[in-house]
């Protein structure tokens, strides 16, 4: 089922009465296509959980409307919306077994929706098998590992065959290895059931790796929506560029003059058609290439060997951050560089910059500056 948000806004009254309202969700306007997995991504406290609560009905919007398919559900209570929700800490009832937990939502059904005992058991077993938990039906949640608990939560959310599945930071309570496994598992279940899924996370890598589309938001405002790769390659503003990618993008104060990109007097690249003036310049770590005669002269910090790649930490006078980082193919690193890195602060390194990994942003608004005539 597709989800459409129209001017969706949620304001919370400020704690101390004099302050302005806190706008947790500001004018959300987008459509989530049927059967897709969507990652709602943003730093903590940006309003993404509020957005999720609005969609599932736990909170009432201050403004705007929500549609599931063609149906306006804005004022419906959560139970009438047909959503399944997985909570950050799973919210499994500790005193009930896995079976009882999964049965719980079915037992709430009343009137014509009411199911027979056998039907309930059958559905619960189906849901458990979908998440590969058929063996553990009689266990209590605390007898399960974190990953298993997570899957019980998913089974419980899916057992009512909801039209939409919502997940609030579903992986944040798992350790690193389980997180990788579980996110693949979520993707597998989502693809198998074809259910429209929205999941909230602050981990950009997590969001990018399994989502069909990601929605990047900050302070209640949606900054960009798109397929993970295109959002990464073509960020709409400085926040999105900085938020996506590890290691983070390197940020410089520079200038654009006559189609050239200037960094502290050096011309490090060309920017045909980009309007001139001072600008913030962002360069992805993988956008650097070591070249003895490269235009970008930097002070070498240290060289970190990572196997296939090498990470070079360096500084530059125009940089906004203290430390900059480049990821380069290990074979391109000259032996002399590694030696001089150990020798203290005397080392120098020069780079050429890949123009497709370089972005220009407005100094004050953070908006992306694009070449004239180019539109995204």
């Amino acid at each position: 089922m597709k989800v459409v948000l129209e001017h969706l806004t949620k304001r919370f009254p400020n704690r101390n009465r004099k302050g302005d309202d806190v706008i947790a969700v500001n004018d959300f306007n987008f459509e989530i296509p049927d059967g897709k997995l969507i990652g709602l991504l943003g730093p903590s406290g940006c309003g993404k959980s509020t957005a999720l609560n609005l969609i599932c009905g736990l909170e009432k919007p201050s403004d705007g409307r929500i549609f599931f398919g063609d149906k306006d559900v804005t004022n419906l209570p959560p139970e009438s919306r047909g959503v399944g929700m997985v909570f950050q800490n799973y919210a499994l009832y500790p005193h009930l077994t896995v079976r009882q937990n999964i049965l719980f939502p079915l037992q709430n059904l009343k009137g014509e929706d009411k199911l027979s005992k056998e039907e309930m058991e059958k559905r619960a077993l189906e849901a458990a098998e979908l998440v590969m938990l058929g063996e553990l039906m009689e266990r209590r949640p605390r007898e399960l590992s974190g990953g298993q608990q997570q899957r019980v939560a998913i089974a419980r959310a899916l057992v009512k065959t909801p039209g939409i599945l919502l997940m609030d930071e579903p992986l944040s309570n798992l350790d690193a290895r389980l997180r990788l496994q579980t996110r693949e598992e979520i993707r597998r279940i989502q693809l198998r059931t074809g259910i429209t899924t929205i999941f909230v996370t602050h981990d950009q890598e997590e969001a990018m790796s399994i989502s069909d589309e990601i929605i990047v938001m900050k302070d209640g405002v949606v900054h960009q929506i798109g397929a993970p790769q295109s959002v990464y390659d073509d960020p709409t503003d400085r926040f999105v560029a900085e938020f996506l990618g590890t290691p983070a993008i390197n940020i410089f104060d520079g200038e654009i003059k006559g189609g050239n990109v200037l960094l502290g007097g050096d011309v490090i690249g060309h920017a045909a058609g980009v309007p001139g003036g001072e600008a913030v310049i962002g360069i992805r770590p993988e956008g650097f290439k070591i070249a003895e005669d490269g235009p970008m002269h930097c002070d070498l910090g240290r060289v970190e060997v990572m196997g296939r790649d090498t990470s070079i930490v360096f500084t530059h006078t125009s940089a906004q951050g203290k430390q900059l980082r480049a990821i380069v193919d290990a074979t391109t690193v000259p032996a002399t560089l590694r030696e001089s890195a150990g020798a203290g602060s005397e080392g120098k390194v020069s780079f050429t910059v890949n123009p497709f990994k370089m972005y220009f942003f407005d100094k004050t608004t953070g908006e992306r500056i694009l070449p004239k005539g180019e539109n995204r």
Partner: protein
Amino acid sequence: MEEKEIELIEKKNKRKTTVRNTLLYILLTVWALVVLFPFYWMVLTSFKSYSSYNNEYIPKFYATDPTFANYGSAFTAVPLAKYFANTLLFTFATTALMLVVIILAAFAFARLKFKGKGIAFTILLSLMMIPNELVIITNYVTITSLGLRNTFTGLILPSVTSVFYIYLLKENFEMIPDELYKAAKVDGTSDLKYLLKVMVPISKPTIITITILKVIECWNSYVWPRLITDNKAYFLVSNGIQEIRESGFGRENIPAMMAAVVVISLPLIILFLVFRKKIMEGVSRGGTKG
């Protein structure tokens, strides 16, 4: 679902919550009144004059002619001030002595390693299950045969230990990291100095909680003082109030009685309002009543 139907659900939900909340507030307020009413009545009655109180067949909810006279007779007709002073002394001495005893014991159990610690602690824990009623008989006989009836020593001694507070404090002491103790040992700090300079200050919140709970307990203690004192010069407020009730002001002078009740209730209520958070926290952590 139709637009109208949705609207209907919305309206119904809204109305339901408003009705529910209103009802809730009404019920909670009713209970608040039930709780507060006796306090109101006691203050009100204490300001009514003896004659006007007895003339009101239907008691008035306000004092027609408020008077402080009852407070005067509460202090003059019965030695209320003496009861007060006794209780203060009793409360202060008992609490202070108890703190010394339990801090030392809790320290030994929490920090020191010694032979027999396990069994000593087990005995301590099992003592928590012993009801006061079981031991009070012998204590009464002991104190009587020591000739300590109608003395403060006799009043205070059996009340200075509390197994539960030793336990509570020990748990608290144990949360202080070992490293601090080791560091102090390296610096050559003695155990006693470490206890006083490090552990006690760190555990101050718990010690304050215990102190407040003990003060409340002492202020309200009735059974033991009743057994051990029959001389009015050693009465505590609870016994005093009972005495006032039994033979009191010569006649049934209820307004004066209420004045006395107000006077002895006030200190604890003030203490409560000042340390509200601490008291409620402390009680929910380990206080019981009865």
